[in-house]
């Protein structure tokens, strides 16, 4: 006969075990739920609101849009979906052009960042461990410094009376100041300057892990250094190239501060259009539709980034 299971008869160890099991089964929700609910309500659900409002109409009231769902007096629920905002995006060419312009600007800035960032990351990865941590800190420091302030600092260099023009005039390279501010060049310089650290860090993370014996093997088998680089180093650093490129490309498409402060009226990027639609025209449904359409375009790059990022973390 088995002894009756009495609460008092349970050994302390068993009771602790039960308590741990309770924590594992129920109590863990006390830990999981607060962040899960917070992010659900304040990060994910807002996208649902944007989607719903993108189907609404503007209205002169607070908040400035019509209801999608309405209940008539006989308790029928009416769903009014207004596709006009999306149709408007397709017909008014400002939106299409600014999407394309943002994509183009982000694409070329990413390429240039890659061209500058790859040798930098490669150089850092080949120094000793102690130099590496110092160099990384030097790269990370501007990464955390405000975008706004760094863009403002750049303006101090490239404006008509800025350091660059002053230096070039003094050296006699040019005889009248270059107009860089309010041009496309300024936007590119701004994006490259701001996002370069985002390219270097993931590239370094991949290049640092590179197995050096592979390169030695390639050299032993008679491969010249450039060939070993192209056939060993470059293919193995693809995850870093993709992660770094997406970290530059995705925020660069949505960039608002740089085209506004450095660019001219021609540099109409989608972030600026969104901002004006919201604060200038106060047309919330159209702004929501622009945001949703923009998000749909970003799903591909974001998925690509997540895929390579998790791959890199697992490696």
């Amino acid at each position: 006969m088995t002894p009756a299971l009495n609460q008092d008869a349970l050994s302390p160890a068993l009771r602790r075990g039960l308590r741990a099991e309770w924590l594992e089964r129920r109590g863990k929700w006390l830990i999981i739920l607060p962040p899960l609910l917070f992010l659900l309500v304040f990060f994910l659900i807002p996208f649902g609101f944007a989607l719903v409002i993108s189907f609404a109409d503007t209205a002169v009231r607070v908040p400035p849009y019509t209801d999608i769902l309405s209940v008539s007096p006989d308790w029928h629920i009416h769903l009014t979906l207004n596709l006009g905002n999306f149709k408007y995006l397709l017909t008014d060419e400002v939106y299409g052009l600014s999407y394309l312009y943002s994509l183009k600007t982000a694409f070329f800035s990413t390429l240039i960042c890659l061209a500058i960032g790859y040798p930098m990351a490669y150089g850092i990865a080949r120094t000793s461990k102690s130099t590496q941590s110092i160099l990384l800190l030097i790269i990370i420091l501007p990464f955390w410094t405000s975008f706004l302030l760094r863009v403002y600092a750049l303006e101090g260099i490239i404006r008509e009376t800025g350091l660059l023009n002053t230096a070039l005039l003094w050296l006699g390279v040019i005889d009248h100041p270059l107009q860089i501010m309010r041009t496309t060049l300024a936007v590119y310089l701004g994006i490259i300057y701001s996002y370069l650290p985002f390219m270097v860090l993931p590239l370094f993370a991949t290049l640092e892990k590179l197995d050096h014996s592979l390169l030695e093997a390639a050299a032993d088998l008679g491969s010249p250094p450039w060939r070993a680089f192209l056939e060993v180093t470059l293919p193995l650093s693809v995850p870093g190239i993709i992660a770094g490129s997406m970290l530059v490309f995705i925020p660069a498409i949505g960039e608002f501060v740089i085209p506004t402060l450095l660019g001219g009226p021609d540099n109409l990027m989608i972030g600026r259009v969104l901002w004006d639609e919201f604060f200038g025209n106060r047309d919330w449904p159209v702004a929501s539709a622009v945001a949703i359409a923009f998000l749909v375009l970003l799903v591909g790059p974001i998925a690509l980034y997540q895929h390579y990022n998790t791959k890199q973390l697992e490696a």
Partner: protein
Amino acid sequence: MESRISPFLISILCIGIAVLYIPILVLIGYSFNASALVSVWGGFSTSWYAELMHNDQILDAALLSLNIGLVVSTGSVILGTLAAISLVRFKMFRGRLLLTGMVNAPLVMPEIITGITQLLLFVSMLHVFGWPHRGFTTIVIAHVAFCSAYVTITVQSRLASADRSLEEAAMDLGSGPVRAFLDTTLPSIMPALASSWLLSFTLSLDDLVISSFVSGPGASTLPMVIFSKVKLGVSPDVNALASLMICLVGACVLFAGYLMRRAERQRLMDAQMAER
């Protein structure tokens, strides 16, 4: 790795770093310019800094930004750490994939989209529940949503590499699981918590786009004030303000880096001691 680096790599590294730093150094240099003309050097002076102290608009904005930063970083560390514990310790639960996604998404989501969607939520909530009014509260909530993601990423990697044997020993000696965690693992991830607190603080202090969307009338943070001034052009008092902010943020980041490095060195030393 090899110590042989080609001159090409060294020069591009130097140029890259110079390009990153020269504008900031020039900005700080010009903040001490006595001349009101930003392009003419009129001698050394700290008068622009003194002027900041008398500018009520800037002082109010600075106070608001610091208050928001303190609440945001504390809230983000709590929520972000809970999320990190959930993801590292509980391998299977409903919503794990959802939580992973929501922790990683803010890092790549363009701020302008996050800002718009959150504003729409706040406006609808105010319409239905009468809460929250746009201003301090909404900025704090919006900042916590993206700062806690950075906290989770930082704490997650630290927690995953933390040694659990001490915690198990504490449980064998009669501590409950929560107590065991608080007594053993929490101190070992404390440097990660401290540095992610500092990083959340700097992220919150720097944010312009999300704050501009979710803020209401009368609540202008420091970056919002700077942005509206900068749109009018370069001005010497903004130089001084920007230099102060860059130094504050730089100090926070360096201190966070120092905490992490010290903790890492301690961990390596402990591991060596344990091997002996």
